[in-house]
């Protein structure tokens, strides 16, 4: 419990988009579970982090929500990726990879420096 990480600003949106891309339409609980599982429980999402992020993505038009019955027959809001969300995901994933490579290169142990 103690060594759980906070979700870094900006990365949560990417995780949500990717989750929806992989699993298709999903409610908030499902998204949270998936992110926590993927992070092997190193991340924990409380509602105050998750729902504002979902609302923001919805406002940006990357995802849209609709009310549907859930697996246990309760009404739940299911989010799905929109076309612009897909584009956004592709762009952000690419940028993230580039950044990650760059940082990795920086942090790599230096060898053969003149």
């Amino acid at each position, binding site marked *: 419990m103690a060594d759980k990480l906070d979700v870094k600003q900006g990365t949560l949106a990417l995780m949500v988009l990717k989750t929806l891309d992989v699993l298709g339409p999903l*409610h*908030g*609980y499902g998204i*949270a*579970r998936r992110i926590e599982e993927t992070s092997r429980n190193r991340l*924990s999402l*409380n*509602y*105050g*982090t998750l*729902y*504002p992020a979902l*609302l*923001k993505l*919805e*406002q*940006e*038009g990357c995802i849209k929500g609709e009310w549907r019955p*859930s697996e*246990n027959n*309760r*009404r*739940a*809001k299911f989010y799905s990726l929109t076309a612009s969300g897909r584009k956004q995901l592709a762009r952000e994933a690419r940028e993230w990879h580039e950044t990650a490579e760059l940082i990795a290169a920086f942090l790599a142990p230096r060898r053969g420096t003149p």
Partner: protein
Amino acid sequence: MRYLRVALARIAGIFTRNRADDDLREEMQAHLEMETAEYIRRGMHPDEARRQALVASGGLTQATEAVRAQRGLPWLQSTGADVRYALRTLRRSPAFTSVVVITLGLGIGANTAIFSVLRGVLLKPLPHREGDRLVYLRHSIGGPGGDNVLFSVPEVRDFRDGARSLGGIAEYSPFSFTLRGEEDAVRVRAGLVTGNFFDVMGLSPVRGRVTRAADDGVGVPPVMVLTHDFWRKRFGGDSTIVGKQVRMEGKSVTVIGVLEPAPYFPDRVDAFLNMVISEHHTSAMMVQGRTHRMTEMIARLVPGATLEQARAEVAAVHARITTEFREAYDPGSNYRVAVIPFREALGARAQLTLWLLMGAAAFVMIIAAANVANLTLMRGVRREPELVARAALGAGPPRLRRLLLAENLILSLMGAFLGVVVARGGVGLLISLAERYSARANEISLDLVALGFTLGLSLTLALLLSFTVSLPREGAFASLISAGGRRTSGSLRKQRLQRGLVVAQISVSVVLLAGAGLLTRTMLQLSQVQTGLRTEEVLTMEVPLLELAAAFVPGADAAAKERYGRMLREVRALPGVLDVGLGSPVPLRRSQVRFDVKAEGKALATGEAMPSAELRTANPEYFRAAGIPLLRGRPFASTDERGSAPVVIINRTLAERYFLNVDPVGKRIAWTGDVLRFTPISDEWRTVVGVVGDTQDGGLDASPGPVVFMPFTQMLAIGGGLVIRADSNVARLTPVVMRVVRGIAPTALIENVMTVAQIKDQSVSPRRLNAVLISLFGALALIIAAVGIAGVLAFSVSARTNEIGIRMSLGADRGRVQRMILREGGVLLASGLVLGIAGAFFATRLIRGLLFGVEPHDPVTLIAVAGLMTAIGIVACWIPAVRAARIDPAITMRSP
């Protein structure tokens, strides 16, 4: 694009708030249930599962708030709520609200009003083209009344030839005319100017043209340029005025133009004319008399020339002519010429008074702000429990800060609104004050810059105040709540700030009160000055029947004298009239005519200035009617007429100057000097037949100068005035006397109809206005400071309720508690007094020029001020001290 989309979604979010909240609750509820179900599935007890799910959620309320913050425009929405809360809170503490609003309002109002005047009079750009290059030349001599003796035309010529850095020198000479209309006659104050006057001044006409070089000299038609005000008032802004003829001084004058609105300089005038209108101004006396000084000089620096250059050149010319024409500059009089930037000359008299008022208003603003700060600080501490409660209910520090800000902004804006109301009234009052001092009073209006400035000031204040109140720190709520929410402390640091503010208030009040005291004493001293007349039951009026231009028409003088004789007879016959005199000018008015005077057998010591005396005329009853005491000899008699031996009566000042220790009666004096050549007055010896007491003709604050009276009948009847003494209530005679005078001279000008009491009052009133204004500021400061002391002590008492309760239960009696609080206040009071008296010592020196008959460090005033402040301060301390003594230890200790 994305931002726009988000913004639109957010705005939409404001309006769908309730439905969205419902949706969100349902969404989170579903989340919670799914999570609970999951935990149960893993084998948890349902209650435990629900608890775990709730823990994982991190708080539904907080999450709702976070989503709301993302959904709409939370800043805008909560601002609305803040304003509503703030209004409600302020309504619930009306005392606090009204004290703050009134304090701020008065401070802002006074500042705005006075700054408006200051800007209008001193700071606004001049309408004159390149006004910065204009300079005013002032010719002064030593001794009373020698501040500005003007220049003679030959002197102007010397400077025009000798000072190369002065590109143009314009001449201006004051004159007044009777302008005849269809039915009435009005006195027109005019400036006689050279053709280059407007070009030098850099002023343009709004209609027609201004004078030019071709209008100079003799043999040209007289022309007139109206000032904008006079054009509007007298001619109703007649758009066809240019080219019209008006009658003045028996001549026909053409109006050639209307001047743009501009400050009146050097005098407040109605019109400008070329010199040809006045025979005097084109006479040999004017043009050649080196000592006939009645011209003002305004000059324009040539491009590139500096003020220092001009000063050096002017000094060189002055040095040359004083050696060349020794007889015109007696060394004892110390002739000198100053070159003064025009703007400075324009505001010279207004400056000190206005800066004084501005300083006072700023002081009041400072202590008002200090008081508001103090009240807010104390209120902030009292409100700690409320703020803690709000924080516990989910309001973060920024939100609390905004709530405070909203309250303070509302207070400031209400104060500013009241301030505008006060300022509007104040500007009206101050314009009448400024008119006495400045040529620019006509430019004053409620100044938007000033208003903006004070508004900005109050908003800044609101901001500062909102950030001086310390908020409960995040995470410390729990301890604050468990403390019972009754913890009103205020840290020591904060109390120190409050105390400092109170000390500052007291000391500033003391400074203001000292100023008010000195000005009040000045006014009292001045109103106690004896006018020199034995009674105030005297009515004076000027009825000039003989115009200078017509004075030498055969028979005109005799006709005027005959009409004066009829007036005297008819007025004397009126019931209630004791005496009627005739003379020029009437008592307590300065004579415009003065010449050098010598006494038979008295030689001047080397380096001694030649005495000059005012020439006044009087008929035999003048002195008795005016109540001027005859000290020696006799008054004029009806036998002192034209052709009989020339006689004079002199005043005490002249008698002491020339006839110390001898009886002046029977001695002879004579007018002397070059200038006499150009006047109808001879330099023959005249026998002194009487000595009369001095009168305050130059105002109550001016020491009387030498005066020579000549018999009215021995002189041309120019500028006659009636002096009427009644048994009581002389003012009631005014309409009756006016009717009599009108009956004899239906179209004559009747001017300055005033009782002696009114003339006296006119002399005192500017000082009184100063005293009243500063006293008002002082009183205001005193009240605010008193509220300040009482407030801080009351706060201190309420913060120490527990402590006092403990002291009392341990045996301290009421007297001791009361003394403890009084001592606390006494320390503040004493520190404030010491600082204030020290400050007053420096500040009052700055207003020396406004004082009369009292020294800036007048100990009586300072002691009185200190006494008053102490008395008020003790009363202000007493109330909280008594309240502290009434604390019931039993109740205090039992309450949490």
